[in-house]
């Protein structure tokens, strides 16, 4: 404890000295700007402590932990089926996608696989989560830059997708629908046609966002060349998902690993962008939503018939072992390192959430930027607080 407070004191003295030096050399006053924990641009309670020299950020330190719920500890006192309730709430905008890698890890340890129909429906719901999650980002990015119009369309159109998720699972935000061995239920009657219509609406929504924001000169001015993350930095920080692909890395876990899911049954493309700036991150996500609607459409066309649940014992005991499963979630690579000791519950679960790595890069990328760009960059990195704090 003493070492920590000593270090804090030293850091404080050093910062005072830095202020004094700045005053003498540049005749500007260094100041500390607290962005958050309660700030409209932070999507929750992330706090950024930024030291400024005039309009320029000298250093920025994200402070997290305001929403830490200790899920890794809680998983150790629960049984396997009970954990999905917890992990639902990690990335709350794309909840179903959080359940899938955990269930897959448990199934991997048990050596079972969901029936084909369940795999297809899982993939469809997974992609619907992505569309619901990322479409909100597509509108929200405009708000962060002062363009209010887009977000109203985003909230309206996201609701169409949430309605479909609710119709299939019973929950708008926390479906808790995935089970070890399959799914809780089959799809309701009429759902497939409704989802097709919904996907058409989402494609129109993407075109709208393209017109409103991507083609907007002010938007381009505010995002192009802002917050550039080069390829090697992105990899070293462990950025994943669209943030990594926007830095020119052609890597998508849906395509690049074998999982008992149905992504390989559809034709789709992994989009990358060479620039690594805020614009690139927005653009890649926009294309991703379009590809997701294509995946959903194709899987609905080829949906196999059959059961949605494999034969599993009523009391699930997972054999001893260790398993790592990660999937390409809306925010990036989401994975679970599950250790089982042959009990009804996991022995240890390490949750690798995408936003934790994605926001760790903030202190690197914010250094030397200007205050208005701080919000642009944070928004374009796209994090969910629950996904950082777990």
């Amino acid at each position, binding site marked *: 404890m003493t070492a920590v407070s000593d270090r804090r004191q030293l850091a404080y003295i050093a910062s005072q000295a830095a202020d004094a030096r700045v005053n003498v050399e540049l005749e500007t006053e260094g100041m500390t700007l607290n962005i958050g924990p309660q700030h409209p641009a932070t999507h929750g309670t992330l706090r950024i402590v930024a030291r400024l020299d005039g309009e320029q950020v000298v250093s920025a330190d994200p402070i997290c932990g305001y929403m*830490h719920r200790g899920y890794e500890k809680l998983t150790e*006192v629960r049984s396997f089926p*009970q954990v999905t309730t917890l992990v639902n709430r990690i990335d709350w905008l794309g909840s179903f996608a959080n359940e899938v890698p955990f269930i897959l890890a448990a199934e991997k340890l048990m050596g079972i696989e969901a029936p084909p129909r369940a795999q297809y429906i899982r993939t469809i719901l997974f992609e619907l989560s992505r569309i619901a999650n990322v479409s909100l980002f597509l509108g929200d990015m405009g708000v962060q830059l002062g363009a209010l119009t887009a977000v109203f369309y985003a909230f309206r159109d996201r609701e169409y997708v949430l309605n479909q998720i609710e119709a299939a699972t019973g929950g708008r935000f926390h479906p808790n629908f995935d089970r070890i061995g399959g799914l809780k239920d089959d799809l309701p009657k009429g759902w497939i046609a409704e989802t097709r219509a919904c996907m058409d609406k989402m494609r129109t929504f993407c075109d709208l966002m393209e017109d409103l924001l991507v083609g907007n000169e002010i938007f381009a001015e505010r995002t192009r060349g802002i917050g550039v993350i080069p390829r090697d930095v992105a990899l070293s920080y*462990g950025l994943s998902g669209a943030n990594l692909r926007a830095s020119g890395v052609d890597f998508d876990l849906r395509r690049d690993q074998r999982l008992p899911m149905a992504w390989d049954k559809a034709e789709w493309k992994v989009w990358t962008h060479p620039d690594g700036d805020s614009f690139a991150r927005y653009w890649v996500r926009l294309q991703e939503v379009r590809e997701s609607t294509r995946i959903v459409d194709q899987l609905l066309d080829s949906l196999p018939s059959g059961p949605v649940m494999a034969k599993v014992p009523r*009391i699930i005991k997972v054999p001893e072992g*260790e398993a790592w499963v990660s999937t390409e979630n809306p925010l990036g690579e989401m994975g679970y*390192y599950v250790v089982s000791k042959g009990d*009804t519950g996991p022995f240890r679960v390490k949750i690798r959430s995408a936003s934790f790595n994605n926001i760790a890069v903030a202190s690197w990328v914010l250094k030397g930027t200007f205050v208005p760009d701080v919000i642009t960059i944070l928004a374009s990195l796209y994090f969910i607080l629950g996904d950082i704090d777990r």
Partner: protein
Amino acid sequence: MSSTEAPAPPTDELREGLVARLRAELGDGVVDTHLVPGDDLWVRIRTDAWQAAGTAARDVLGCEYFCFLSAIDWLPSPYGKGEDDPTEPPPERSSAIVQGYAGGGSRLQVLARVGSVRAKVALTLKADVADDEPRIATWSGIYAGANWHERETWEMFGIVFDGHPDLRHIYLPTEFEGHPLRKDFPLLARMVKPWPGIVDVEPLPGGDDAGEAE
């Protein structure tokens, strides 16, 4: 686990190659390995070769992508799953420490996962840390992302990362004492009140079986 139409090959040249290159680089720094063909790879590293292993993984194996770094406490929890009646004396529980894949010789183990986005392969590295004074070299100079993960591991498990530039709390308040993810750290919510969810499967009304295990 492989998908249905493409069964896993019995040998895995890609991952065996990784092990061979890592052994050539580190010598006896590689203590043990566990390979599941076509699926995953675990390598246990000697504690003093941890930093060299990180550098070798990045520069020799081409695993530039940093996935995560964390730790495992292999001590079985002395509190079970929090299902005990607080008015009764706690039941006897086994405290035998049994490590997982690739073995181990200590209660606490550090594990990290790195991958190559070109070869589309990843591996998990493990290392023992001493029980009495858990410490290991930092990876923050090798993978920038390890900085935050080591801060989290330090506060959750009490493992000190030598050479870390900024080892302070990330989630918990600065004054917090103890290391919550260690197994001997009690989950207080379960200590004060029994949790009803511990009864997971109740007999169904008119059900034919009473929930057979296995």
